[in-house]
């Protein structure tokens, strides 16, 4: 009779049973928390994936505008033309530009311009805004200037004293001034050649007529590409195989370091946040699934007495889970979509580009997450159900054997899969999992110790407090788990909140509202006062004028530096100051002696006297000209001989500049003496310079010695003048420096640049307002994303807390019903519940605070590259938050204990 045919019951019957159980459990509220937790996991993953997906596309587009293309190949020589043909064959759009420095003449004046010849299809991304008048509102041009025409930036019109229609001479070419350039998408991209002066744009077909470009001329060739991302990637790979290192391939990611820093931090944060949200949802799922299965032991026993086999029971409960998951996925998709739409709506004024449509991937991500969560967190307790012995119908005390290890193994396994899947980073996964496991062990031990306050006999039902304390101890095992879950939850919330606050604070500090957005360089000593007066007359606040001079380390304590393996890498970062000074550097000499412009050198390398230098001199100038950061090190390719260090822009100052901190040694006091130098700490490390060393510099062909009296930390991303070396006043003063200063100019004040440049034609103004604006936009977008994820994690956390409180609800109900039948009053029971939960909450809060600070230390130092700050207020807020939240949640959930009749509770009717 027990043959195979009887073992396989009609699946429709099981499906109907599953549906009925699902529907009833749903109505009874048993499944709601489990469902919500699942929805939460799907929502956070789908919503965040949708958001980051589209945001990233938006940022890429926006950055592409800054590049005027998706990919750019640049070089000192013209790249092979076949590359353009190849790109077109692959369906990509192409354009080319050629930048060079030249003098432009009108009939009455001349000016050094940053000339740029462009092909007809330029720009491929972004818009070239032009007008008929200087400083007017621009309209998007259809392309670059047609042959025979030049377009000039507003301030060049004033400098040349011309109007549209007038003639402008470039080299041997005579060109008509067509339109005025208001905004050029990739204006910030160039190195020196693009920043030497105001922009003059001409058609690339006119370049031969100018006869300006000769063999050896300093020019920057660029090929621009745009099109389908997949094709671009394939093409980039092809290009890398073709090129032998003389050309540089860039995409939008390589652009601004400040932007990509902010982006990668934000991505780390979002990833961490969605991980937290999903893992917390996972814990909530595990807790609710366990409770659900415990409440279904009787069901299974009854079903078994009615003839259901274990396999059928498993199938029924699996079906229930699958239906639940499908429902949760659908709801989660919609919720995720709404969340991301909501945020996009909030950001509508910031996101200026048209967002590309979302792909399917975020939805797949959400669905797979739901199933992974269910499989790893909910399956073990649900599978245990099938082991319920049918004899339970006769003897209530027989429970199925639920392995205590299996759920943890499954949970940890699932978490591993999820973390690795999201991060695609094996190291990060290992670190995260190990730290989570470590934290769990430590927290478990600590909570055990905290709860192990000696043996206790009975319930101590005399007062609410004593009753609560005895309950805390009696349920020690469960309470350790509760404290653990609560503290992990609170810890996650604290970590995210603190990280978010620190990140945003950091960014705000990086670019305060009044951050200067123009650099003025190449200012001579006599000009300083005039510029200060000019600024004062026009109500523009003047900032400090930093003297600036090129210097290079020759030896330390009388010994040449020995070569290092990492010489090829940057010994520091190319800061804005460095980049700007690179741009300004040659102009200092060129403007005084126009004839040297084409010689292709920045002046000091021929005289350096180091072996192996002569063959390098040509390159050293070029690397600066091509816009590479100043640290890229001339002479890095030298095979033998002493180590050659890069030339740096250095300054001297009496007081420590803002955003600089002395980390060792001391800043010179009021009675400073010449011959002291303060070095940026990491750079000092790279050069093996220590405090007290005597360093010999080469400055303007002269040797200068200084003793290192302090090492500094410098905030590099503040878009302000920063220096690796700062000398004490009197050390370099006699060597002839130029000055650098910054100003904040609003859009409407920019026309003053013309007057300023007319009065001081030799100074160079570098406009970084567009860059600052772009960074601000990106940071604002990223901040919103961070707010969103924090909110989602908060919600997941609340779910866990609720699930965790519910997990012990049955026992509490039963125990308190007995107490009430024995005459305990509402006050006593409610008071005891309040104390019990508050105690657990305080413990969880304390543990969470410690855990959060430790984790933050790691995260900020290692992942976010921030400086770790101790958060004093959290030490009060953490425990308080734990106490209030857990007590409120707990009492709210168990309030029914005193409101329902003890009899109904004891009869199991409640």
């Amino acid at each position, binding site marked *: *009779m*027990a043959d195979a045919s*009887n*073992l396989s*019951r*009609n699946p429709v*019957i099981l499906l*109907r*049973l599953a549906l*009925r*159980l699902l529907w*009833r*459990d749903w*109505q*009874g509220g*048993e499944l709601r928390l489990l469902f919500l937790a699942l929805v939460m996991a799907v929502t956070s993953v789908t919503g965040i994936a949708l958001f980051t997906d589209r945001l990233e596309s938006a940022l890429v587009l926006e950055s592409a505008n800054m590049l005027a293309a998706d990919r750019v190949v640049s070089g000192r020589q013209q790249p092979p033309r076949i590359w353009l043909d190849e790109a077109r064959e692959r369906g990509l759009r192409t354009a080319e530009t050629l930048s060079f420095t030249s003098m432009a003449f009108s009939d009455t004046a001349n000016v050094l311009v940053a000339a740029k010849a462009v092909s007809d299809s330029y720009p491929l991304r972004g818009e070239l805004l032009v007008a008929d008048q200087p400083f007017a509102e621009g309209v998007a041009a259809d392309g670059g200037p047609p042959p025979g025409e030049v377009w000039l930036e507003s301030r060049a019109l004033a400098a040349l004293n011309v109007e549209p229609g007038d003639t402008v001479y470039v080299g041997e070419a005579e060109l008509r001034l067509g339109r005025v350039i208001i905004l050029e998408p990739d204006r910030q991209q160039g190195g020196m050649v693009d920043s030497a002066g105001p922009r003059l744009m001409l058609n690339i077909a006119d370049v031969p007529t100018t006869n300006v470009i000769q063999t050896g001329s300093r020019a920057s060739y660029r090929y621009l590409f745009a099109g389908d991302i997949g094709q671009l990637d394939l093409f980039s790979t092809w290009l890398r195989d073709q090129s032998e290192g003389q050309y540089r391939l860039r995409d939008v990611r390589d652009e601004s370091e400040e932007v990509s820093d902010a982006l990668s931090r934000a991505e780390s944060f979002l990833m961490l946040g969605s991980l937290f949200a999903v893992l917390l949802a996972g814990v909530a799922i595990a807790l609710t699934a366990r409770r659900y299965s415990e409440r279904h032991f*009787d*069901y299974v*026993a*009854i*079903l*078994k*007495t*009615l*003839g*259901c*086999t*274990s*396999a059928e029971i498993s199938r029924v409960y699996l079906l229930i889970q699958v239906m639940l998951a499908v429902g949760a996925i659908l709801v989660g998709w919609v919720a995720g979509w709404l969340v991301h739409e909501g945020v996009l709506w909030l950001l509508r004024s910031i996101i200026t580009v048209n967002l590309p449509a979302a792909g399917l991937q975020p939805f797949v991500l959400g669905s797979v997450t739901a199933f992974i969560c269910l499989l790893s967190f909910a399956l073990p307790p649900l599978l245990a159900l099938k082991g319920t*012995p*049918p*004899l339970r*119908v*006769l*003897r*209530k005390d027989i429970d199925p054997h639920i392995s205590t290890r299996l759920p943890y193994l499954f949970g940890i396994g699932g978490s591993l899969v999820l973390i690795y899947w999201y991060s695609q980073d094996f190291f990060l996964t290992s670190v995260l999992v190990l730290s989570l496991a470590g934290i769990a062990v430590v927290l478990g031990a600590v909570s055990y110790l905290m709860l192990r306050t000696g043996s206790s006999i009975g319930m101590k039902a005399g007062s609410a407090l004593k009753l609560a304390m005895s309950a805390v101890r009696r349920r020690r095992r469960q309470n350790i788990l509760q404290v653990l879950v609560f503290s992990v939850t609170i810890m996650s919330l604290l970590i995210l909140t603190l990280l978010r606050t620190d990140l945003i604070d950091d960014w705000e500090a990086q670019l305060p509202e009044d951050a200067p957005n123009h650099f003025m360089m190449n200012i001579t000593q006599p000009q300083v006062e005039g510029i200060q007066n000019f600024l004062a007359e026009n109500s523009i606040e003047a900032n400090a004028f930093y003297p600036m001079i090129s210097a290079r380390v020759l030896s330390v304590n009388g010994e040449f530096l020995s070569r290092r393996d990492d010489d090829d890498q940057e010994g520091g970062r190319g800061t804005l100051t460095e980049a700007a000074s690179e741009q300004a550097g040659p102009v200092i000499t060129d403007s005084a002696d126009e004839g040297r412009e084409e010689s292709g050198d920045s002046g000091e390398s021929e005289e350096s006297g180091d072996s192996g230098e002569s063959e390098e001199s040509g390159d050293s100038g070029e690397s600066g000209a091509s816009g590479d950061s100043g640290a890229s090190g001339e002479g890095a390719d030298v095979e033998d001989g002493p180590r050659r260090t890069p030339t740096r822009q250095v300054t001297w100052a009496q007081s420590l500049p803002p955003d600089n901190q002395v980390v060792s040694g001391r800043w010179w006091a009021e009675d400073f003496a010449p011959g002291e130098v303060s070095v940026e700490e990491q750079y000092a490390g790279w050069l093996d310079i220590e405090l007290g060393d005597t360093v010999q510099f080469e400055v303007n062909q002269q040797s200068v010695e200084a003793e290192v009296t302090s090492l500094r930390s410098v905030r590099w991303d503040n878009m302000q003048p920063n220096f690796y070396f700062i000398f004490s006043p009197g050390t370099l003063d006699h060597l002839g420096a130029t000055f650098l200063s910054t100003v904040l100019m609003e859009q409407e004040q920019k026309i003053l640049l013309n007057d300023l440049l007319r009065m001081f034609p030799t100074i160079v103004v570098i406009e970084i307002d567009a860059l600052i604006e772009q960074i601000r936009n990106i940071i604002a977008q990223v901040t919103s994303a961070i707010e969103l994820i924090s909110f989602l994690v908060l919600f997941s956390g609340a779910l866990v807390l609720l699930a965790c409180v519910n997990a012990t609800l049955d026992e509490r109900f039963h125990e308190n019903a007995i107490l009430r039948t024995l005459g305990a009053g509402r006050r006593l029971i409610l008071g005891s519940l309040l104390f019990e939960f508050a105690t657990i909450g305080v413990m969880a809060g304390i543990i969470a605070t410690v855990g959060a600070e430790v984790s933050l230390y790691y995260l900020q130092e290692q992942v976010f590259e921030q400086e770790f700050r101790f958060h004093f207020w959290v030490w009060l807020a953490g425990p308080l938050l734990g106490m209030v939240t857990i007590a409120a949640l707990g009492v709210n959930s168990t309030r029914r204990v005193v409101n329902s009749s003890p009899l109904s509770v004891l009869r199991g*009717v409640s």
Partner: protein
Amino acid sequence: MIRTEKLVKSVNTSEGKLVILKGINLQIEAGDSVAIVGASGSGKSTLLGLMAGLDGATSGDVYLDGHSLAGLDEEQRAVLRGQLVGFVFQSFQLLPSLTALENVMLPIELKGDPDADPKARQLLTRVGLQDRVKHYPNQLSGGEQQRVAIARAFASEAKILFADEPTGNLDTSTGARVIDLLFALNQEYGTTLVLVTHDRRLAQRCDRIVSLVAGEIAGDEAVGAALNG
């Protein structure tokens, strides 16, 4: 219909092995109603559990309608239960999330019978609960819940009905009415009834009373007749 052979059940406790049943030999014919009586801890519920295939014996065997249970695993026993056995429990054991009707329909549906609804309604009418079909167990009194349980037990058209202290949770008069119903249906369906109780008066209503003392059969008497061995 039911036969046990040297049925032994023992469990391991912290104080050593505890033998609950010490080699029970018992034969129950089809259509019989047998009461198993004994003091608390005498092993009567354990015996019922083994005979119904809810648990496995330590040694010995149980034959249900000719099928040996000894060689079967829990899965095969479950199938056998579904086909042969119905239950009525002291604590009713209704599924709380199903209505009275759905509870009764469940075993019929599990058999794959498409007429579960009318059959269940008919049975509920038979036990006098035609007006309570849509009620959930927690909306029914103890007596009503037990009547639903009886309807469910007969719904599977089982050949054997096991009842474990069916009146244990009911007051005397409700208990009496439930028992009347149980015996009446038993008569109608021609079911073999095995009833575990410590209530002598209830036991008297069966054809035969088996007394257990400390895991052994201490008496086996036909009610109102001579001892039949």
